[in-house]
């Protein structure tokens, strides 16, 4: 009986093996070998040169996740307060950009922000002159927020929508004003949603390469861009693999730290 149930997971396990486990082993192999196939730690040692890039990537991803949270939380909360029929429509609106290609969305933002772009044309038309909006870290953050915001709103919404309205009434009954209800009940109970939203924005943001390539300047190359160039332009598979590995470990550490928060509140929840 049990083995039959396990069989149901077989397609996924096969998928996992072929497309995750095996490539991971390949990455590890390349990261610890040189071009001739000899085992070496030189690739990882060379990472030292890229530390500022790693730091920049982490910082930009963290800022993007924070901005997504600041925009996403009130949005998600407002959606849950709407009547059920309108909620579906609002969720659809949030999802709508996700139906368009990621590349298209980023290119649209380029068209909006570039020197001869829509925003600058409007600014010059009203006589304010042109401003450099693109090729800046802020533009990269804007691109990441734009692209990843739905991934923040969805988990927050799914947590907030399950929040028992009686708990809010109970808090009011015990003397909480609206703000206190938010701080003492709603916010603590939505921590799991905050954690998963932040994870879902931060992890893809830290390894993104297309957004920074299109919206960032040469100085704002992110680690994702460097990895891509290692594989596609310098053909240094070993260095690329080492970077991927380091990035993965950093992401794991970040997730581990964040999961500690959920872990703790989960203990309280159970």
């Amino acid at each position, binding site marked *: 009986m049990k083995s039959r149930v396990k069989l149901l997971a077989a397609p996924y396990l096969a998928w996992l093996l072929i497309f995750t486990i095996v490539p991971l082993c390949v990455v590890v192999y390349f990261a610890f070998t040189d071009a001739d196939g000899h085992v070496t730690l030189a690739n990882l040692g060379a990472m030292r040169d890229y530390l500022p890039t790693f730091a920049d990537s982490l910082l930009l991803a963290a800022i993007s996740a924070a901005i997504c949270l600041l925009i996403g939380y009130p949005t998600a909360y407002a959606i849950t307060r709407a009547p059920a029929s309108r909620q579906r429509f609002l969720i659809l609106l949030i999802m709508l950009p996700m139906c368009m290609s990621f590349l298209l969305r980023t290119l649209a933002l380029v068209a909006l922000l570039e020197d001869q772009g829509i925003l600058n044309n409007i600014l010059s038309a009203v006589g304010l002159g042109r401003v450099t909006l693109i090729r800046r870290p802020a533009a990269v953050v804007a691109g990441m927020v734009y692209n990843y915001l739905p991934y923040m709103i969805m988990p927050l919404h799914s947590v907030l929508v399950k929040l028992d309205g009686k708990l809010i009434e109970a808090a009011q*009954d015990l*003397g909480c004003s609206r703000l206190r209800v938010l701080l003492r009940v709603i916010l603590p109970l939505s921590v799991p949603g905050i954690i998963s939203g932040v994870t879902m924005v931060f992890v893809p943001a830290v390894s993104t390469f297309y957004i920074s390539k299109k919206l960032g300047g040469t100085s704002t190359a992110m680690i994702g861009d460097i990895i891509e160039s290692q594989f596609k332009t310098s053909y240094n598979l070993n260095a690329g693999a080492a970077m991927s590995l380091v990035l993965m470990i950093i992401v794991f550490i970040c997730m581990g730290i964040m999961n500690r928060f959920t872990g703790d509140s989960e203990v*309280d*929840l159970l």
Partner: protein
Amino acid sequence: MSKELIRLADVTMAYDGEPVLRSICLDVNDREFVTLLGPSGCGKTTTLRIIGGFETPLSGDVFFDGVRINDLPPYKRKVNTIFQRYALFPHLNVFENVAFGLRVQKLDEAEIRSRVFDVLELVNLRGYERRSVNALSGGQQQRVAIARALVCRPRLLLLDEPLGALDLRLRKDMQVELKRLQQQLEITFLYVTHDQEEALSMSDRVVVMDKGVIQQVGTPEDIYNEPKNAFVADFIGESNIIDGVMLRDRLVEFCGRRFECLDAGFAPNEPVDVVIRPEDIDLIPYEAGFIRGTVTNITFKGVHYEFIVDVAGFKWLVQSTDYRELGSDVGFVINPEDIHIMKKSEYSGLFGDYSSFSQEYDEDTEPAAEDSDEKQS
């Protein structure tokens, strides 16, 4: 009794144009235990929510201690509520749940600790402070909810079917405990339930509601012994309700016979509803009875038997400790003080006939959870 604490004056309420309360007038005195009793959707929970501040009445006024509080938000009212399914905060442990209201008031830590420990003592939950509320049984969660409300020392405690989710045994224990707390702490309790037994055994006064209208207000004895209409008679316990004619004061005719009774003040020959409780009927040999019938159904209830007796087509419910054979002919004796006369009402003819007898009428104790839930949206 003592002075008035809550007064509802002509309160009406409607959801989406559907009236749920029709001009409710109700006084609750200080330190009184008042129960709102009625079936699902009768408006009892809405009444409670209006007093708690979670709903604003369409019209009419709510007074607390003589002050109109219609527009006062819930957090400014000296009222605490025990919710139907407790609504404990899952992210806080027992101590912090109980301390919640005190922390909001920004009391100092020492006072919070002593008050929380005192109230946990009161509900027999000392030693559970560090437990997660999710690890507690239903009865324990109930106690935490009570402690959380009592620690704020409210003048008025609103209880919305607080025992609905507990099993029968625990419910009985908690009934006794709640009554003890109410008397010990001298707090006014406004209690909502659909369980007539609970209402009768705990309350100083019972308010019977149906269709958004108060049907009767009175002590449990009044409500049981002198129901005002067929709805109250049927909802509070079992009743045989028979069409009768009040010939003159203290003489009523039903089942083709004239009976002495204690009621007076009706017009001569006024049609009335006659209520006779099943436990007030004595079974005697067929020949000796004024009313005669045939036993068509027997249910053993432990303390007594329940017989359905067919009297010329009308089925009576009779409770007796004496056994009678199925199909046997029996006679009734009814004492004058056991005959209750009610004026005809919109409920006349709807209740009190056991001809559609089934187990159905036993099942009115199911939790009426949908009562409050459907009003959330």
